[in-house]
Every structure is written in C-alpha cells, then in structure tokens.
C-alpha cells in the first residue's frame, strides 16, 4: 500500500475549493440587495437576504421563456439523436458490412468540425425560409454536433453488451428485431440514458448557433439570454447572478445524482472509442 502524503490532500482540497467557490460566491451574491453587491469590499453573507433579483428575472424579464426554449431545443435534439443514433450505433456495433470504419471515421470528422463554418449559409437559409427564432432554427444545426456524439457513444455502449446474449436469444427463438427489443435494448438502457444526458448537456450549453439564429428575447436560450441581460450602460449583476444560480442549481443536482453515469459516458466515448 502506498502512503498518501499531506500534499495530495491539500491539492485535492484546493481543487475542490477552486471548483466550487465561484458557484458558492455567485449563489450568495444573488441574494444580496443591490447596494451590497456593488460595495467595494462586499460582505460575505447577504444582509438582508433578498429574493428581489429572482422576482425580477421571472416577472420582468420572463426568464422562464428562455428556460422553456432551452428545455425544448435540447430535449427535442436529444430525442431525435438518441432515436436515430441507436439504430445507427446498433448497426455499427453488431452487424458485419463493408465501410464501417470509414463511416465511423466520417462521423468523427463531422463531430470535430467548427460550428462557425455553417453559420453563414444557415443564416441565409433561415432568413429565406423565415424560421429564424423558431425551435427548428436551433434543433437542425444542433444535430450536426449532437448526432455524431450519440452515434459514437452508443456504438461504444452497444459493444459492451456480450454478443452471446443476443445469440442466445436467437437460439431461444427470437428474430433480429425481437432480440433487439427484448435483450439488446433493456441491456443498453443505462448506456442510452447516459448518452441522452450527455447530449442534453451539450445542447443545453450551446452558444454560437443560439446567438446567431435568435434575434429576440423571447426565443433565446438560457446562455444567450444571460449574456443579453447586460444593456449598453448598465449591467444588472444581481439579475445575472440570480439567472446563473437558477440554471446552475438543477445542473448541480443532475451532476450529483448522475455523476457515475456521466463519467461512464465521457470515458466510454473517449477511452474506448
């Protein structure tokens, strides 16, 4: 057994502290009344504690619209990707045919291409078809990075399922579709779920397309909306911090509850390929 020195605990502790502190400070500050927020040496605890910033973003800025936008866009993209991706990944993981390596390579190349490269044609197309500011204007470009990701992850997950189980099902009298439905899918469910979470998070965080293809407050997603809170002369810091807290807390809960899954997804996609 190797000895663990004090320095490693200090490094680990520092790492955790540095990761958490900005969130913690944001959370605290979002409850501070304006004057305190802008003090030269701000107090640590909010005095008094106020919900004013939260009231303002929901009632005055209708921030809930942005939350709905983000949920719908990320959710719809995730559903489409997992549906199409599961089919493709099953083929890639299980069936023998020519050109599989090339297809996987192609998918990987697409996943690495710069989003900005398709902004200009899509902007022109969306203008012409008048779908700017609609969900579709975001869902379609989101597919470019989300679909390769899901295919890639799901292929890795499907490969982890012992092939013998599917053979056993065939011997037991199940056809290919029945086998997929009764054996492969239930066993792949954790992997599919993980893939869905990751895809959702990637869509949730997207900024460039969301900035380019929305032009009014009501159709923006959360990241763009928060950036757009700032006016030319004033920066409503209290509201920005409240909005950041509102979107971070659910993510934090998600991350705490699903951490194992998320990590398994990140490493399955990257390390196993």
């Amino acid at each position, binding site marked *: 057994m190797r000895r663990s020195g004090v320095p490693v605990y200090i490094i680990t502790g520092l790492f955790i502290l540095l990761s958490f502190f900005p969130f913690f400070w944001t959370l605290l500050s979002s409850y501070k009344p304006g004057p305190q927020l802008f003090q030269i040496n701000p107090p640590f605890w909010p005095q008094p504690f106020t919900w004013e910033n939260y009231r303002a973003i929901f009632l005055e800025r209708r921030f809930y619209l942005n939350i709905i936008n983000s949920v719908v866009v990320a959710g719809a993209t995730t559903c489409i990707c997992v549906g199409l991706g599961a089919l493709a990944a099953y083929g890639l993981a299980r069936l023998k045919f020519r050109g*599989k390596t090339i297809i996987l390579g192609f998918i990987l190349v697409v996943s690495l291409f710069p989003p900005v490269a398709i902004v200009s044609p899509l902007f022109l197309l969306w203008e012409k078809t008048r779908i700017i500011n609609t969900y579709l204007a975001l869902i379609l470009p989101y597919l470019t990075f989300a679909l390769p990701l899901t295919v890639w992850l799901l292929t890795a997950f499907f490969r982890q399922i012992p092939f013998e189980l599917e053979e056993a099902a065939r011997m037991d009298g199940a056809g290919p579709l029945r086998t997929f439905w009764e054996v492969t899918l239930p066993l792949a469910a954790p992997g599919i779920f993980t893939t869905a979470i990751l895809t959702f998070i990637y869509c949730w965080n997207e900024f460039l397309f969301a900035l380019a293809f929305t032009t009014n407050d009501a159709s923006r997603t959360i990241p763009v909306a928060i950036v757009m809170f700032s006016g030319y002369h004033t920066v409503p810091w209290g509201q920005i911090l409240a909005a950041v807290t509102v979107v971070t807390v659910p993510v934090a809960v998600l991350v705490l509850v699903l951490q194992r899954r*998320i990590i398994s997804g990140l490493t399955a996609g990257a390390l196993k390929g």
Partner: protein
Amino acid sequence: MKPGVLLSREARLGYLLLAPALLVIALVALYPLGYTLWLSFQQKIIKLPWLHQGWVGLANYRELLAADRFWQALAHTVMFTVVSVSLELALGLLAALAIHRTRILTGLTRAAVLLPWAIPTVVAAVMWLFLINPAFGLIPMGLRLLGLPEAWQVLLAHPASAWAVIIATDVWKNTPFITLMLLAGLQVIPEDLYEAAGMDGASRWQVFRHITLPLLTPAILVALIFRTAQAFMVFGHIYTLTGGGPGTATETLAFLNYQAILNDMRFGYGAALSVVIFLGSLAFALFYLYTMGLQIKEEPRP
C-alpha cells in the same frame, strides 16, 4: 446454396439502420458546408446591397490572406490553444494524481470535477466576469490587498491581463474534464504494477516516469485531442468576456468569423474564413483519426 446470402442480408440491414442518421448528417452538415464553399466565392454583403453581389472568384480569399487581422486572430487562436491546453493538462494531471492517491473520489469530488464542465461556457464566463469586476470583484480586491497598482486592477483593459482572464476561465472550466479522463485512465492501471515496481526498488518519481506516464499516454492523448479541437474553436469566452477587445487584441478565428458574418453581414467573406477554419479543423481531425486509427478498427467478433 448461394454463399453469403445471409451476409448480404446483414449488410443490407446495416446500411438500412445507418441510413437515417447519415442522411440527417448529410442534410444538416454537409449541405450547409457545400453552401459555405459556394458562398466563399461570392460577394454577399447585406448591409451594402448596392455593391456588386455575386461571383467574385478568389477575391474573398485574397482579401482574407492579406488581412493583418486574420493573421493576428490565427496567432491568438494558436496561442490560446497551446497555453490553455498545456495548463489544463498540467493541472489536470496533478489533480488526477492527487485525487487518485487520496482515493476520495466521493460524490463531492466527482461533483466538483463535473460541475464546471457541465455548465454552459458563457455562464462560467459571466461568473468570472463578476469575480474580476474592477469595482467589486473578489479578484481585484485580492490584487489590491497585494498592493498592485490601481491600473492593473482593470484586468480587461490590457491585452495581457485580458488574455490571462480568458485563459483562467477556460482552465477553470475545462481542467476538470481532463482530470476526469486521466482519472479514468489511472483507474485501469493495475495496482500490482505499482507493487512490482516498489519491489524492484523504484522511487516515486521513477514509478511515475516509467509506469504511470506510459500507461496513461492513451488517456492523455484523447483528452488532448478533444480539448485542442474545442479550444481551436473558442468563441463563447471571447464574446462574453472581452468582445475581442481591447481593440482587436483578443480576437480569435471563430470570433472574427462570427463578426464578419453577423456584425458586418459579409457572408461571402465570412464563408471564405469559415472554409479556411474548416480546412484547418479537417487536417486536425484526420491527424486525430490517424492517431486513433487502431482504436476504431472493427473489433473482431467472437
């Protein structure tokens, strides 16, 4: 009996299963990309409709390659990529080794590792913007306590300190991702290798140098490649933190490209820049494929 009937049936099913996904990718990615290429040979400036609009051959590319702002953005992008990814790798390795050693990969540590990764880049940037606010931010407050001159406390006003803020934000947000990858890599190194090395009389540094590092290389490589590709397309931080400023001191390729398209409404010129960025990314992706070649080879079936 015809041999290979089943095989072709299997192949047909395979293509059938892949068809929808590939079709969608072709439609949403390849078609716009082709459009971008076509646009890059056009003059299309929405703000100036009275100018000639249409085919201009290589004019956009010529203008681009002659523009100092382009070369400057390229240099910025490369600098940002190299500096932030190196820092993230170094810190990530340190953190991964420490967490692995302490074996306190508890819920709290995992969440600490995941949370910065899981929030949107621009949300992270906004939080940092708050922390560095010259009037009431914690970091300038700290700098004041250290006795640094007042002028230095407006961090975004100077190119060097503005870059420092951008890089710090990126490092804060992405080091956890690398830590995670490397932790996963560390966890698959069998413990008895360390024990054997210990029996062989290796020092801690020797164990790290000859056991940990070589076996961790694949994980390091993957993390590096992913992060490099992402860093090369950096946009959100720049847009949120500095808007490319002061002046054009923090403009990157993606930011410049966005400005050309949505600020200047120069779609042809922007497309030419997109094509250049795309070619760079493609070269990188092919290099990546080459590196990962062994891993995506079809796995033999039992």
